[in-house]
Each structure stands twice: as structure tokens, then as C-alpha cells.
């Protein structure tokens, strides 16, 4: 990690000024749980030469009620999100996903903004944010813009952030009335585990036990976490049943292969992603008050 300059932005304006000055050579440091190991590991040519510490910017931390949704500061830690009463009540899916990130120590340091901007294909909070219809507010000295989560993620570890931009806020849609959510993470062990796959589901119960609306997102099944709109269309308007869960699982597996191709891991992931969706649907439907 030698030869890396360190600077600190005391507020958003300072941070933006520093980023504008150093551009692609600079990386924002929030919780450091992704950046610091990357600095240790990456080849010198791929390293940022400047680390801009934004961890102390209080304005970027915390959860606020915005009426129609929640505004989550990017510096809010996973531990804080998992325990936040507003998030637990209005967007329980996000709290659930945050509670499953890494380990106790990683959740205490790591931030949701860091998890989002690192843009790992298996990031735990991203499928939840996608299924919550999250919007990312970006700021730069040139002004601000807002992108839906799906447009923000470009490729593995690559986002739509311009070199002078900062993720300044995350707007999270609230669970609709009659809604329920479910999140299933599969890892190789019970803590400090990178998701082998994860599935996030939001369902809204309509009249006559039918699914009025479905949102389905998954991690580690495509180059970036994505929504599966065809699976959502299959679910919407249908009656929940084990057979429907099976159909939806098979559809998700097909969509996964369409997105990623047949890979070495496909013989495992194909049946398992279907099973994980089945469980997430069951969990979400139960929480929406639906009969199994």
C-alpha cells in the first residue's frame, strides 16, 4: 500500500473538490472493508494513487423518512441499517440483506454506499435495493442526477459514476400495503461468507389471493445483480402455489443462463437458484399475509 496519498473531505463540497482534482486516480474511502483489501492486493498499475476519506461526513450518514420512501445516507453502516427501526418497518428487505453482509465486524465498518459502489456481482445489498426500486442520487461539481439502481450498475465492479461523482444518497421505496419481502442468501458458511447466490423478492397481495405485483432480483447469477422482469411478469396476476414457485424458479434459472451463458458452475446454480427463489417467494408471501 506504499505510495498512496491520503486526503480527507470534511463535507460533501470538499470531497467533491478533491475528487474533481484527482479524478480516476482517487478512490473514496468510507468503511474501507472493500477498498483496503483491494489496495493490498491489486497490482500497482491498478491502484488509486489517492485515497479520499469521506467517513467523517455526517450529512451522508443515517436514515430519514421521506414520506414515499426512505433516504439512506451512503455512509450508513450495514449494522446501522439492519437495526434501524424505520428500515425494519418500511423496507425490511434491506435490513434483512444488510444483516447478512460479511461478519459482525464487517457490518460495523462497511457502508451501504461502499457496497453499492464496489458493484460486486455478489454484493448482498444490491438485490435488495433493486427489489426496493432504489434510486441513487449522484452529485458532482457539475450538479446532480438520479439513476435507478438498474442503470447504475454497468458491469462487474463498474458503475455509472463519473470520475468526479459521489453517491450522495439512496432513495429506497417502501413496502407497499399488503406487501411482503423475502431475502435468501446462500453461502458456504454461516458468517464471513461471500454469497454463492442471493435472491430478493417483494410481493404485493391482491384480491382473491392473487399476486398483484412481484419484484425479483438476484445476486451472483449475472454479471451484475439484476431484476428479472420476465419472472416478475410470470408471477404478477397468478395465484401463489408450490407449482407457481416451481415455474418461477425454472424461469429464473433460464433467465440466468440467458444472461451469463452456460458456465462451469451452471449445473449447480441452475437447480439451486430455482430453489432459492422458491424459498424467497414463500417467505415474502407469508409476510404479505398470503396463504401458502
Amino acid at each position: 500500500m506504499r505510495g498512496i496519498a491520503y486526503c480527507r473531505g470534511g463535507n460533501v463540497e470538499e470531497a467533491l473538490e478533491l475528487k474533481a482534482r484527482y479524478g480516476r486516480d482517487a478512490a473514496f474511502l468510507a468503511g474501507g472493508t472493500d477498498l483496503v483489501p483491494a489496495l493490498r492486493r491489486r497490482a500497482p498499475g491498478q491502484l488509486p494513487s489517492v485515497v479520499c476519506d469521506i467517513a467523517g461526513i455526517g450529512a451522508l450518514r443515517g436514515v430519514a423518512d421521506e414520506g414515499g420512501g426512505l433516504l439512506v445516507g451512503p455512509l450508513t453502516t450495514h449494522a446501522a441499517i439492519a437495526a434501524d427501526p424505520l428500515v425494519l418497518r418500511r423496507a425490511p428487505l434491506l435490513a434483512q440483506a444488510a444483516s447478512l453482509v460479511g461478519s459482525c465486524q464487517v457490518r460495523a465498518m462497511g457502508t451501504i454506499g461502499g457496497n453499492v459502489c464496489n458493484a460486486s456481482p455478489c454484493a448482498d445489498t444490491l438485490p435488495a435495493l433493486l427489489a426496493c426500486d432504489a434510486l441513487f442520487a449522484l452529485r458532482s461539481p457539475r450538479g446532480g442526477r438520479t439513476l435507478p439502481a438498474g442503470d447504475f450498475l454497468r458491469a462487474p465492479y463498474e458503475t455509472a459514476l463519473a470520475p468526479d461523482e459521489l453517491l450522495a444518497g439512496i432513495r429506497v421505496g417502501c413496502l407497499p400495503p399488503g406487501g411482503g419481502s423475502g431475502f435468501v442468501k446462500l453461502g458456504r458458511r454461516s458468517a464471513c461468507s461471500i454469497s454463492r447466490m442471493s435472491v430478493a423478492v417483494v410481493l404485493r397481495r391482491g384480491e382473491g389471493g392473487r399476486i398483484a405485483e412481484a419484484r425479483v432480483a438476484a445476486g451472483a447469477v449475472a454479471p451484475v445483480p439484476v431484476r428479472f422482469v420476465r419472472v416478475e411478469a410470470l408471477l404478477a396476476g397468478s395465484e401463489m402455489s408450490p407449482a407457481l414457485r416451481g415455474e418461477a424458479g425454472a424461469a429464473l434459472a433460464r433467465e440466468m443462463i440467458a444472461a451469463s451463458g452456460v458456465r462451469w458452475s451452471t449445473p449447480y446454480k441452475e437447480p439451486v437458484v430455482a430453489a432459492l427463489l422458491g424459498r424467497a417467494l414463500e417467505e415474502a408471501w407469508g409476510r404479505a399475509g398470503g396463504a401458502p
Partner: protein
Amino acid sequence: MFGNAVKLAAEEVRATLAGVAAGMLGARAEEIELAEGSAFVRGDRGRSLALAAVAGEASARGLGLAGSGWFRAPRTTWDHETGKGDAYFTYVYGANVAEVEVDTLTGRVEVTRVTAVHDVGRAINPAAVRSQVYGGVAMGAGYALLEEYASRGGVPLQENLDEYLLLTAMDMPEVAVGLVEGNDPAGPWGAKSIGEPAVEIVAPAIANAIFHATGRRVDALPASLERVLLGRALDEVSPPAGGRPEGAGGLTIPLGDQEGAT
């Protein structure tokens, strides 16, 4: 065997301490006993000194409280031709029972409980022996379920513990330890070894428990998600059995004069 050498070394220190204590208590060295942090005259607990005081006096007199001991293991014999002989001078026995829960849709195995019973000779410090067994179960269960080391072209692919996975505290099963004591003639105060035995039989017990749960054998370790669900590993880097890793070029390593090499 190390324990025998330690015992001999400690006896030297004991003799030094007993000599100093004898002088301080007006007794003969043979009459001194050392126990529970004190030195006292046998049969007269009233004539007693704290061991720390005796050690302080030894130090003041310039007597070093160090000793050395060496021990040679009893001779063993082994005839490779006939497979006969006294290959070991003592044997350890143990039995493990593993209880697992297998997620049959994902292949995820959770070890819920391990009962580990070991023949340890004399348990000089039973708490320490049980600790060895707890550690052995953690290590053996990691070996059974997670630990995997791969290399490509001779370069290790797991360089750190973020990739070479061990059990976390959250994965540890409940462990019930049973110590079956005896008196081993070859060990210090009759003790046998427990470090290695505590590790070795955990994975076979877990593999058998997986078979009992699923009806299907896992015949290679670790019993990963893929092996348990599909019955085979899905590894983008491991060569098929007997094959060469990608990137190893045409390099062949002569087998030398091993048996069966042609």
C-alpha cells in the same frame, strides 16, 4: 513423547526448588513436597512456604530454575515385505459421532453436534484435554466441509484466509467430549497424545452422517455445496483425476523408481 522430555526437565527444576525449600524450612530435601503453589515438609503442612518465595530465594542465590531433559522413543520395528512388526509403541483409540443437517436443495451441510470420545491415557489436565478435542473438532469439521487448496501451474490460488475458508464460530457444532482414561506405560504419568487423534476422525464421521442423511456418498473432501448436491466437484481449475492443471504446459515430472512406475 515430548511430554516425557518435559517431565525429565521439570524434575531437575523440582530438585533445585526442593533443595532451596529444605534449607529455608530446616528439613531435608527428600522431605519436601511441592503442591498447589507451595513447598512444605511432608506430613507437616504447617511448615510451608509459597512457591514464589522459594523461587525468589533460588534466584537470590543465583540458582537458575531451568532444566533440560531428553527422551528417546521406544524402539519400533516394521517389515515392509511382510507388513509385520511393532510399528508403534502405543496406540490411541477414539470414536466420533457427527450429527448433520443437509439442505437437499442447495447441498449446504450444517454440523449440529459432534460427540467425540477419546482414549487419552491419563488426562493430566482434563480441561486442557477437552480444549484439544474442541479445537480438533473445529479443525476436522473445516477439513470436512470447507478447506480446499488449489493451484494453477504450481501457483496457489488461495493466498489468505478470506479464500481458504475455515469454520467460523457461527458454524461450530455443539461438541460433547468424553475422555476414557487409562495408564499408558510409554507416556508421561500415563498420558497418551490427543492433538492429532482429535482432528483425524471428525471428517469421516461427518461424511458418514451426510451419507446417512442423503443416501449418497461424498467420496472427496471438502463436502462442498456442489459435491453434496451433485455428487461431484465443479471446479474451473482442478484437473480431472489424473490430469494436468491447465497452464502446466508439457511439463511431466518423472515418477522415479516408485513402485508401479513404468
